[in-house]
C-alpha cells in the first residue's frame, strides 16, 4: 500500500477513505472555528463566480435576480475550496509525474475524431446542461453525492441515483460501448 506523495496513484479505496476523514474533519473544524458546519460542495461556486462576471456588466441585474440574491455573490469558504482543488491537483500531478496535456480524450476521439473544436463544443454544451441540472437538483456529486449521503439525507440518495441513471443512459447513447480506449 503505497501512499507516498510521489506515487503516481493511490488505491481509490485509500484516497476515498482519506476524503471521508477530510469531510468529517472539515465539519468539526469549521464548527469550532467558524461556528457553522461546512460540508463539502462545489456547484454553488459556479453561480457566485458567474455572478461576479455579470456584476461587471450590470450590477443592477445581479442585485435584482432572486437566485443570485439567495446565494449571495461573495468569495466564501466554498469558492476557496474549489480554488484549492485546482492547487491540490496541480501539486499531486507534479509530485506523482502524472500531469498530461490532453486536448481530446481517447474515448471521445474514437467516437468523434481528433478535432479540438468538436470536443470543445461538446464539453461546453455538456457543461451548460450539467450545471443547469445541478442547480435545479440543489447540488452536484460533491454536495448531494458525498455530503448528502454522509448525512443520510433523502435528497442526497435520490439525487445520486438520478445523476448516475442519466449519465449511464446518455454515455451508452453518446459513446456506444466505448471501444477499447476506456482504460488509461
Amino acid at each position, binding site marked *: 500500500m503505497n501512499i507516498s506523495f510521489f506515487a503516481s496513484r493511490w488505491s481509490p479505496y485509500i*484516497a476515498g477513505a482519506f*476524503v471521508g476523514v477530510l469531510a468529517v474533519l472539515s465539519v468539526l473544524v469549521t464548527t469550532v472555528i467558524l461556528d457553522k458546519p461546512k460540508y463539502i460542495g462545489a456547484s454553488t461556486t459556479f453561480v457566485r463566480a458567474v455572478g461576479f462576471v455579470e456584476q461587471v456588466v450590470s450590477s443592477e441585474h445581479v442585485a435584482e435576480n432572486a437566485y443570485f440574491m439567495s446565494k449571495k455573490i461573495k468569495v466564501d469558504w466554498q469558492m476557496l475550496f474549489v480554488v484549492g482543488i485546482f492547487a491540490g*491537483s496541480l501539486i499531486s500531478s507534479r509530485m506523482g509525474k502524472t500531469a498530461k496535456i490532453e486536448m481530446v*480524450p481517447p474515448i471521445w476521439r474514437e467516437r468523434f475524431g481528433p478535432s479540438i473544436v468538436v470536443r470543445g463544443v461538446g464539453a461546453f454544451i455538456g457543461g451548460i446542461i450539467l450545471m443547469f441540472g445541478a442547480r435545479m437538483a440543489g447540488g452536484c456529486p460533491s454536495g448531494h453525492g458525498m455530503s448528502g*449521503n454522509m448525512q443520510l439525507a433523502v435528497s442526497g440518495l435520490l439525487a445520486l441515483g438520478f445523476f448516475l441513471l442519466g449519465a449511464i443512459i*446518455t454515455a451508452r447513447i453518446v459513446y456506444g460501448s466505448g471501444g477499447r480506449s476506456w482504460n488509461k
Partner: protein
Amino acid sequence: MEQIIGLITGIIFGFLLQKGEVLRFERQVGFMLLKDMTIIKFMLTAVIVGMIGIYTCHSLGLIALSVKATQVAAIVIGGLLFGIGWAIAGYCPGTSVGALAEGRIHAIWAILGMLVGAAAYAEIYPYLENSVLSWGSYGKITLPQLLGVPAWPIIVAFAAFGVGFFVWAEKKGL
C-alpha cells in the same frame, strides 16, 4: 479565516482526487459505460467513512447536520439533466477544475459551459420557484426520519452494501 480553511481543505481534497485518478475523463466515462468502477470505489468509500464519522460526532453533540431539502420533481429532473451533461462533458463541477490542473486542457470548455449553465439557471429560477421546485417538497428529511428507524442500522446496511459491491467489482476486475 473562513477562506483560508476552505483553501486548505480544497488543496487536500484536490490532492486526493488526483491521487485516486478520479479526475480523469476516462475514469468518469469508463464508469458510465460500466467498464471501470474506480470513481464508485472512491466515492462509496468516502461516503461510508464519512457517515460513520458524521453520525459519531453528531451523536456526541459535536456537530450539526446541514441537510438539503428533498424536492422530488426538481431532484429527478435536475438529476437526470445533470447526468446527461456529465456524460457529454466527462467532468462534474468539482473534478473539472482538478482535471484542468493535471493538464486536461479540454476541461476548460466544460468549466465555461458550467458558468453559462449557472447564469441560465439564475435567469429561469423565478419561473421554477413556484412550479418545479415546489412539486413534491418534503423539506430537510433524512433516511432515519423517513424510515422511522435509528441511523446506525442504515449505516451498517450501507457499509455492507459497499463491501459487497467492492468484492464484486474486484472479482470482475472493474
